[in-house]
């Protein structure tokens, strides 16, 4: 199908997906989680079950989004995701990036923005899943390090927020610091989108002219050993600078990723 014929339909699908996401968060938080908590097991088991529940829900959400024709996608290399102590990083062009990554990673932990712990649609789920808040920075780093050392697989976006189209890519050093301190493996995901989609300054109803296509590629692990020989402040600066240039090289500006206007 082309762009014109599906344009209005895709606005409807996008709106419906937002509603579904909100309702899904409420239903999980108010109905499913309380039932999960009745099952036997300690706090860690419960957290794992919640993460698993989020993963399955996101997998379903991805199926709905693509099944209704709102989005097309490919996801390459998922077998390399979900190892103990693995830190998964990705660039962040669209609102739905984390939905895909979580959907294809076995029961991952995430660092999520602090506002989700206050949002009535999401707060029960992110709390029960034991996700880490991105604020304040020092606590985020401590908790993320503890999660990785405990063997969690953790998803983070070094940009800290969605990419600002037309502006240079920026990475926050906190992710590099966490990686140097505690990651058993550092695995990059490169996300490319063929046209602006649910980016930072794009209202939800402004859907792309053609059906958008998202591409996720899981890259090779990044060797952290060289960085671990330097004092941590220098190591995290060097790793952060390397990651930034690595992502710039991998993504380029051709894929509509960060178009300069």
């Amino acid at each position, binding site marked *: 199908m082309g762009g014109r014929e599906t344009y209005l339909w895709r606005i409807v699908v996008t709106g419906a997906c937002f509603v579904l996401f909100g309702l899904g968060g409420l239903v999980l938080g108010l109905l499913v989680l309380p039932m999960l908590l009745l099952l036997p097991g300690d706090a860690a088991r419960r957290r794992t079950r919640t993460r698993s529940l989020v993963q399955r829900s996101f997998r379903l959400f991805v199926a709905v989004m693509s099944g209704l024709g709102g989005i097309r996608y490919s996801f390459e290399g998922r077998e390399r995701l979900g190892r103990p102590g693995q830190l998964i990083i990705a660039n962040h062009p669209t609102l739905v990036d984390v939905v895909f990554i979580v959907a294809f990673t076995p029961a991952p932990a995430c660092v999520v923005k602090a506002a989700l712990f206050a949002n009535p649609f999401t707060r029960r789920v992110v709390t029960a899943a034991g996700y880490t808040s991105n604020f*304040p*920075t*020092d*606590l985020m*780093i*401590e908790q993320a390090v503890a999660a990785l050392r405990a063997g969690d697989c953790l998803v983070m976006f070094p940009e800290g927020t969605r990419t600002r189209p037309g502006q240079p890519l920026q990475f926050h*050093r*906190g992710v590099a*610091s966490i990686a140097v*301190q505690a990651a058993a493996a550092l695995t990059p995901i490169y996300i490319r989108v063929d046209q602006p989609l649910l980016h930072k300054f794009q209202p939800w109803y402004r859907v792309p002219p053609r059906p958008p296509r998202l591409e996720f590629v899981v890259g090779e692990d990044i060797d952290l050993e060289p960085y671990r020989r330097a*004092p*941590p*402040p*220098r190591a*995290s600066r060097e790793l952060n600078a390397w990651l930034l240039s690595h992502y710039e090289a991998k993504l380029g500006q051709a894929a509509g990723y960060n178009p300069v206007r």
Partner: protein
Amino acid sequence: MQTKEEVTEQVRAALVELFEIDPDRITPEARLNEDLEIDSIDAVDLLDRLRRQTGRKISAESFRSVRTVGDLVDAVCTLVQA
């Protein structure tokens, strides 16, 4: 029990080794953020190092009000002398 002089020496050593700061710039009045360019992420590395050095559990909260090298020395003193 460590004296304030010993703590000062530990803090100086940590700043020099971690951040490769010229020792002459480390005065009690030097502001960690503005003068020595230590940001919130560096502060985590610094606390981690001081924790290992002193063997004390240093919470991030107890250092929220630290602005200068002098503040930092005082905060560590309070902990190790407690």
